[in-house]
């Protein structure tokens, strides 16, 4: 599974992208975020407050309780601020 990070999520983790292989117990984006938090202090800092996070699966915005089963690309980022 390809992960992408943007804005302060990317900065705190220190990576824009990484490839991961989550265990089968990881069902939703929220599960994935909790599991990723243990990978490094940067991940822990980025994912400390899931209420401040948004996600996209295969480039479509989704709520954090969406299933990640079969997802190729999951992006995790703060609320958008364009325009």
């Amino acid at each position: 599974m390809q992960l992408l990070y943007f804005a302060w999520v990317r900065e705190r983790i220190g990576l824009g992208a990484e490839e991961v292989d989550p265990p089968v117990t990881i069902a939703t984006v929220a599960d994935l975020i909790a599991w990723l938090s243990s990978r490094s202090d940067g991940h822990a800092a980025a994912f400390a407050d899931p209420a401040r996070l948004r996600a996209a699966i295969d480039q479509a915005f989704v709520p954090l309780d969406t299933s990640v089963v079969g997802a190729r690309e999951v992006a995790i980022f703060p609320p958008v601020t364009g325009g």
Partner: protein
Amino acid sequence: MSDQAIIRVLVTTEAIDVAVEQIALEQGGAVATFTGLVRADDGVATLELEHYPGATEAALTRLAEEAVERWSLSAASIIHRVGPMQPGERIVFTGAASAHRAAALEACAFLIDRLKTDAPFWKREVVGGEGRWVEARDSDDHAADRWR
């Protein structure tokens, strides 16, 4: 006219040329545009726009298509600048063209309101040498919600 509607979506590091964009929109009797500029207040020296390549263009195209369908537009454009930019520069341009002025004006407002919540862009301000990520605003959610 929506069958032959001209949709123009562009994510670019270059300056936005409104004269070019206006001419691209002049397909109907009525053309409405919105331009957002980098604010010069609050001591902001530079604004940086990050985006999600691929997903951004897809989101903007879906938004333009939704506007064309809903207001039977003859043209719709969304141009968004990314990368570093200075106060006074244009960040974003949306435009809509229709046979009727109310449709063009409403569709243009729809495009900018929904872009603020539905497209993956993130603003980072540099103030006094320090960078800070801009926080999303509830008022943007409310503005976007009125079109749902």
